[in-house]
């Protein structure tokens, strides 16, 4: 299809990048209000203990301290991001369940004083037996962490579709493997924080670095027991989050409560160490995976059992655990599927959402296992993926409707682009290539309101203000939305200002998670600008004596397609309509809700079409291994991404490249090391993340499928790509060394030991 877009599909610099390049952008830590106090949180040093008493008197007596609160100064209302999972008091009242849980908070005239005051709070604990291993926690007699959960099982989910028993009998080859993945942190550089202020009329304003301003309002309303109309959340510039800033946390409540008590604004900024200890992290898993295939590699059945360490509280457990099942359904055809997932309470830090939420673990396992199967059957990993790929129009056994799939093309183009056939199996024990593929829902339906809305105001001189609840958290949504509006109205991105993420002034949006923003908010912005365009087109058609549908809006002009010379400027047209017609001020509005989605049926294996589109991706990793030491480097990545149509090519590449880097970290080195619930590596020194020296050569291949449901054909690109990165690299390591490592991260040390073991067993390690 010939593309004639003026703004869409181009590499346009981010609208917020000039301000970010000069230090002018204000992040939460950069903001201050007159008379502001500085808050700090006291965290539990014990992983499981009853709070007998908290003596705050010495802290309160310290000069400069303005307030000290404990859980008893809150309403003690339990929260959870989902209604079904409310198990956590943000500031705990009677019991601590993990090291780092908030037990008290102070506010003082400066940070040093607040920190000093923390040392003066005396907490008497009665230490309780604790449990850290999810399998141990499930055993009878294990310490019970929550009164409502006798067996420490926080959630269980069972899927059973088709008949796996029959399928495994029919299968020419069946194999079973166990994989594990560790806790991993989000690693955004900006720490979490907020400023809370009450006005004299009893209204609370919270400035926050958050992905979910409307959820933050909902949860603060709940724990403070005040209506939404009394709370305003203003999302400020967010310094990265990747799922780490998706909830109402202890500091939001503490700042709000102390601000009310003192009548002064309260600012709380966490330290990076605090975040490593007390923040959310990716859920650790142990996965028993069984795959049965025909002789030609066609997948006949998958069966899996997954036990996860959810830590002390539920967080978004119901979403995480659904995602484990979902990850089996994409990107291959699976005719028979049986799955059991158990999320277990332990006295470890809490697991929450992270980019590729609940799915990256499963894809690592399946992508690895598929290559093991291919090897056993003598099939090329590229061919086995092509054999099983989901195509446009397919419906999965769980009723996901694949409106478009560029998977086959992504596999082929990655193979071509990487020189797969010349390299695979020819690395002489040093070089290796591996492939991984994945699929991802574009904004899964949520249990709460899923809609995204947009309002567009046209300025008197022809510029536009886009008002959206969608939060730009650094992924670039404000730029994408500006491009969409500019394209529809024939303006430039420069003519558009995006106002976002303010619960008082912008319409509802569920937030930035589940890779939903381009799809949901993008559709809403497109519809809202079409609303305005149709009003303008009607007026222009009358004036130019042509049909409205023959008009072109481009480069700030409006003209009949066949007669570009008979044009009227956009600004003049706006003046004509706003000033001289009954229309008056031009405001466009729209709400997008995907018509074709279902809520997964809990009584029937969570069957249901969770999203209106699914993205697909493949990637080929190339590694070089030192056979002496096991040390290896990721040398090159060839990435084929089907995001439907890239609204902003440079931005889409940025998402894909960032995903590869994050996935590379999870595969190669990242792991939160825990010892009896204590984080042993709470900082970037002990917790290694990819640095510039680890950057492979990267080549992105855009696969265009032009999804009929996406804005200008676009699907998601922010989250889906990461899930197949670990599998691709693990498969490349196998190609180079002959060893399989099923426990992430695949450190050089593990590669060395596996090769040594293989040699000692009489193999070559190759």
């Amino acid at each position, binding site marked *: 299809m010939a593309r004639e877009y003026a703004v869409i599909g181009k*590499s346009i*610099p*981010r609208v*917020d*990048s*000039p*301000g*970010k*390049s*000069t*230090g*002018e*952008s*204000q*992040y939460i*830590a*950069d903001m201050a209000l007159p008379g502001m106090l500085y808050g700090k949180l006291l965290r539990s040093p014990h992983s499981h203990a009853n709070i007998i008493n908290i003596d705050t008197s010495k802290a309160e007596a310290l000069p400069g301290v303005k307030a000290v609160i404990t859980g008893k100064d809150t309403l003690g209302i339990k929260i959870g991001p989902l209604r079904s999972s409310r198990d956590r008091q943000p500031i705990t009242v009677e019991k601590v369940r993990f090291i780092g849980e908030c037990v008290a908070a102070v506010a003082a005239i400066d940070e040093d004083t607040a920190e000093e005051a923390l040392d003066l709070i005396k907490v008497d604990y009665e230490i309780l037996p604790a449990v850290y291993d999810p399998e141990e926690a499930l055993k009878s007699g294990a310490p019970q962490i929550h009164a409502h959960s006798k067996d420490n099982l926080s959630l269980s989910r069972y899927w059973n579709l088709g008949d796996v028993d029959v399928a495994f009998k029919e299968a020419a080859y069946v194999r079973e493997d166990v994989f594990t993945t560790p806790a991993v942190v*989000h*690693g*955004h*550089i*900006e*720490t979490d924080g907020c400023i809370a202020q009450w006005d004299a009329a009893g209204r609370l304003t919270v400035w926050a670095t958050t992905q979910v301003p409307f959820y933050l309002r909902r949860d603060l309303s709940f724990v403070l027991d005040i209506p939404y109309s009394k709370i305003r959340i203003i999302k400020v*510039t*967010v*310094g*990265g*989050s*990747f799922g780490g800033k998706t909830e109402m946390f202890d500091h939001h409540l503490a700042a709000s409560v102390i601000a009310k008590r003192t009548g002064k604004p309260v600012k709380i900024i966490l*330290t*990076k*160490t605090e975040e490593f200890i007390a923040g959310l992290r990716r859920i650790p898993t142990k996965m028993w995976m069984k795959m049965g295939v025909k002789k030609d590699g066609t997948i006949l059945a998958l069966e899996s059992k997954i036990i996860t360490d959810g830590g002390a509280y539920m967080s978004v457990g119901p979403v995480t655990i659904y995602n484990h099942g979902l990850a089996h359904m994409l990107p291959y055809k699976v005719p028979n599927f049986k799955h059991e997932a158990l999320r277990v309470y332990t006295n470890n830090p809490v697991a929450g959402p992270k980019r590729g939420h609940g799915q990256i673990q499963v894809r690592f396992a399946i992508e690895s296992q598929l290559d093991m199967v291919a090897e056993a059957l003598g099939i090329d990993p590229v061919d086995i993926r092509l054999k099983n790929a989901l195509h446009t129009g397919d419906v999965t056994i769980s009723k996901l409707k694949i409106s478009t799939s560029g998977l086959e093309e992504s596999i082929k183009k990655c193979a071509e682009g990487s020189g797969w056939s010349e390299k695979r199996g020819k690395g002489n024990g040093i070089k290796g290539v591996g492939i991984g593929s994945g699929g991802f829902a574009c904004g899964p339906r949520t249990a709460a309101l899923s809609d995204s809305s947009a309002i567009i105001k046209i300025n008197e001189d022809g510029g536009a203000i886009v008002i959206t609840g969608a939060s730009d*958290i*650094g*992924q*670039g949504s404000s730029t994408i939305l500006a491009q969409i509006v500019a394209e529809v109205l024939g303006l430039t991105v420069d003519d558009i200002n995006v106002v976002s993420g303010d619960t008082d002034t912008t319409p509802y949006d569920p937030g930035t998670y589940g890779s939903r923003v381009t799809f949901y908010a993008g559709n809403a912005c497109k519809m809202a600008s079409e609303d305005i365009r149709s009003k303008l087109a009607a007026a222009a058609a009358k004036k130019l004596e042509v049909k409205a549908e023959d008009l072109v809006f481009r480069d700030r002009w409006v003209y009949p397609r066949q007669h570009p010379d008979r044009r009227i400027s956009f600004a003049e047209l706006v003046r004509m309509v706003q000033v001289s017609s009954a229309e008056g001020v031009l405001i466009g509005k729209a709400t997008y809700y995907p018509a074709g989605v279902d809520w997964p049926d809990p009584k029937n294996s969570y069957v249901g079409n969770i999203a209106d589109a699914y993205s697909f991706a493949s990637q080929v990793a190339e590694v070089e291994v030192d056979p002496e030491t096991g040390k290896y480097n990721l040398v090159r990545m060839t990435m084929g991404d089907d995001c439907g149509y890239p609204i902003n090519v*440079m*931005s889409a*590449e*940025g998402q894909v*490249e*960032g*995903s*590869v*880097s*994050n996935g590379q970290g999870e595969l190669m080195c990242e792991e939160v090391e825990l010892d009896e619930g204590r984080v042993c590596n709470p*900082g*970037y*020194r002990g917790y290694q*993340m*990819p*640095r*510039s*020296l680890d*950057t492979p050569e*990267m080549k992105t291949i855009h696969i265009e499928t032009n999804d009929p449901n996406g804005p200008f054909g676009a699907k998601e690109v922010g989250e889906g790509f990461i899930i197949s990165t670990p599998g691709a690299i693990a498969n490349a390591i196998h190609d180079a060394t002959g060893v399989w490592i099923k426990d992430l991260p695949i450190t050089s040390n593990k590669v060395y030991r596996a090769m040594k073991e293989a040699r000692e067993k009489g193999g070559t390690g190759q």
Partner: protein
Amino acid sequence: MKIPIMLKVNGEIYDLEINPWKTLLEVLREDLNLTGTKRGCDTGDCGTCTVIMDGKSILSCLLLAMEARGKDITTIEGLAREGRLDPVQETFISHGAIQCGFCTPGMILTAKAFLAENRKPTREEIKFGISGNICRCTGYAKIIEAIEAAAGVESK
């Protein structure tokens, strides 16, 4: 007990009274309101707080402000001249090297100091030059390209 010190930042002379335990990062952000310098890990591991001191990139979270007396300090606010962005700022914008932007001031200043010492760097030298700065968003590729462009090195 506050101690008087003089700091030269972005060409301006500031006479201040500070607590001697305050880091340069804290003084820049809290006393001078130069919040473009960001606090990341506060332990010298992420590079986010990088500023240029006497031509070298340094970590302002690890340096006591007292030790910066008499030195010539440049923060991100001092890079643009007469309203014109520095070429490194421009190439970071045009090459998509900025996502969440939190590492950006430190990354740009690191690149600036690096390019002052190495005007024609190779790709590998650039990677080494910014290896003390963590970026979690971009995967570094576009940052490396932006620095190559700023150096006028043709990207292959």
